[in-house]
C-alpha cells in the first residue's frame, strides 16, 4: 500500500490561511474606503494593476537581470543540470531553466510565474561553499518554491502594498499641485484637503499592515519550502547543514554586496542582511534560523521512526 511517512503540518497551513484571510479582509476594507473617498480611484487601480502585471509576467527576467544571472546549458554546467534533472524526475515537475550568477554571495533563488516559466539560479559562491548533497538540498528547497507557485502568490499578496503606496503618492501629488487649479470655492477646497489627508492616513496604515502581513506570509512559505524540499530528498539534516553553512557565511560578507542584493530577499534561500543590523522578526522575509532548524529536526525524527 502506498503511504507517506510525513503527516501534513496542519499548524503551518492554518497559520498561513489566517494570514491570507487577514490580507484579503484588509484588501476589501481598503477598496471600500477608497471608493467612498475618491472619485477617480480607477486610475490608481489601473496603474497598480499595470505594475502587478509587469512584475508577474517578467518576474523571471527581472530577478535574473538584478542578480546578473546567466542561463547555462547542460554542456556548460553538466553537474548542476544533472542534479536538477533528477530532482525534477523525483518530484514529477517540468525542468526549470537553470542560471548561474557570478557572485560570491552564497545564495540561490527561484522565480517565474509558473512551473513552465521558472528559473532556478545559484551563485558561484554557494556552489563553492556547499558540498554536492547540500547543494542538492538547496535546489530542492528552490524547486519547492516553484512547485508552490510562490512568485504568483507573493505578487498578488504584495499587490495591496503597491496599491496603497501608489495612493499615498498620488494623493500627496494631487494635494500639492492639483488643489489650486480646480477653480472651486474655498469651502470645497478645505473639504478636498481633508479628504486627501484622510486618504493618505488610511493608505499609510493599510500599507504598514499589509507590509507586516506579506512578510509573515513570506516566512510561512519559506518554512513550507523547507519542509517540502527536505521531504523530497528524504534528508532533512542535509538541508539543515546547508542552512547553517550559508547563514554562517552570510554574516561574514562585506556589507556593500549585501545592500545591493536586499530588494530581492523574498526569493532567496537565506536572507542577506547586513551584519549587526538587528531586525525585528516581524519585518523579516525569512523565519529565524533556529525555527527552520527546529522544523527540519522534527522531520528527521519522523523519518527515524521504525515502520
Amino acid at each position: 500500500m502506498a503511504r507517506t511517512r510525513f503527516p501534513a503540518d496542519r499548524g503551518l497551513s492554518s497559520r498561513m490561511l489566517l494570514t491570507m484571510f487577514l490580507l484579503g479582509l484588509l484588501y476589501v476594507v481598503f477598496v471600500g474606503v477608497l471608493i467612498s473617498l475618491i472619485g477617480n480611484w480607477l486610475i490608481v487601480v489601473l496603474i497598480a494593476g499595470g505594475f502587478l502585471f509587469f512584475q508577474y509576467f517578467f518576474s523571471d527576467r527581472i530577478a535574473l537581470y538584478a542578480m546578473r544571472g546567466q542561463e547555462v546549458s547542460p554542456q556548460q554546467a553538466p553537474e548542476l543540470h544533472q542534479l536538477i534533472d533528477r530532482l525534477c524526475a523525483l518530484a514529477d515537475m517540468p525542468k526549470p531553466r537553470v542560471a548561474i550568477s557570478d557572485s560570491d554571495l552564497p545564495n540561490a533563488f527561484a522565480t517565474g510565474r509558473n512551473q513552465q516559466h521558472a528559473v532556478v539560479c545559484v551563485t558561484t559562491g554557494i556552489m563553492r561553499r556547499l558540498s554536492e548533497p547540500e547543494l542538492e538540498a538547496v535546489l530542492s528547497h528552490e524547486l519547492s518554491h516553484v512547485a508552490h507557485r510562490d512568485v504568483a502568490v507573493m505578487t498578488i499578496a504584495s499587490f495591496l502594498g503597491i496599491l496603497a503606496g501608489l495612493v499615498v503618492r498620488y494623493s500627496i501629488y494631487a494635494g500639492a499641485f492639483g488643489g489650486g487649479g480646480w477653480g472651486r470655492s474655498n469651502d470645497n477646497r478645505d473639504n478636498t484637503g481633508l479628504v486627501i489627508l484622510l486618504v493618505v492616513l488610511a493608505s499609510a496604515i493599510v500599507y504598514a499592515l499589509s507590509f507586516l502581513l506579506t512578510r509573515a506570509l513570506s516566512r510561512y512559505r519559506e518554512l513550507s519550502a523547507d519542509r517540502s524540499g527536505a521531504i523530497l530528498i528524504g534528508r532533512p539534516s542535509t538541508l539543515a547543514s546547508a542552512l547553517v553553512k550559508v547563514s554562517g557565511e552570510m554574516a561574514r560578507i562585506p556589507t556593500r554586496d549585501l545592500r545591493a542584493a536586499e530588494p530581492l530577499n523574498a526569493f532567496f534561500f537565506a536572507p542577506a542582511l547586513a551584519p549587526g543590523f538587528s531586525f525585528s522578526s516581524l519585518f523579516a522575509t525569512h523565519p529565524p534560523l533556529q525555527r527552520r532548524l527546529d522544523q527540519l529536526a522534527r522531520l528527521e525524527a519522523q523519518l527515524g521512526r521504525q515502520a
Partner: protein
Amino acid sequence: MKFLDALLGRSKPKQPKLDALFGVTAAAITLEASAGLRPTGQAAVCFKPASGEGFAAASEELRGLLELAVKEAGSTLRVEDDRYGYRWVVVGDPDPEDVVTAVHLVNSTLEQHGFGPQLLCSVFGFADSSGQRRCHLVYLYKRGTFYPFAPREGERRDNELELQVRGTLGSDLPIEPELARWFALWGIPL
C-alpha cells in the same frame, strides 16, 4: 485541490506508478524484432536513500529479500551508490521475466515502508547483437512512462536511435510524450 495546495504552499510527495513496469517483457520482443536491440540481461532500480533508522531498516529488509530472490532465480546482484547520492540496485539475469520480478521486489518493498516517493527510475539495458550500440529503456516512476536513452562516447546521445525506439515501442509501452523529460543518466552502473 491543486489551487488550494498552491495557496497553502504545500506539495504532497509524489507516489510512484508501478503498473506499466511489467510491459517491459513484451516490449523486449518488439525491440528485437523491429530494431535489432536485445536485452543485455541487466536492469537497475535507482532511488534516493533517505536518512534515519526507518530507511535503514527498510534497506536491511530489502537486502534480505533480494538475496533470497536472486539465489532462487540464479541472478546476480550489485548495489552501488553514484556520485549524485542515488543508490542503484543492479540485477543481472538472462531471463527478462526474472529481471522485472527483481525490480518489482525493490519497488514494492520500498513502497510498503513508505519510501515510494524516493524511487527515481528503473533502467533496462538493451544493445544490438555486436554490443556496440546500447540503448537503455528508462522507466520514470512518478510519470509511469518509459523513454529510451542511448549514451555514446563523450556524454552524447544517439537521438536518432532514441527516436527510432520511440516509434517502435509506441504501441507497447506508455512513452514519455515530453522530450524535455527524457533526462540523461551519465555514468550509470549498467
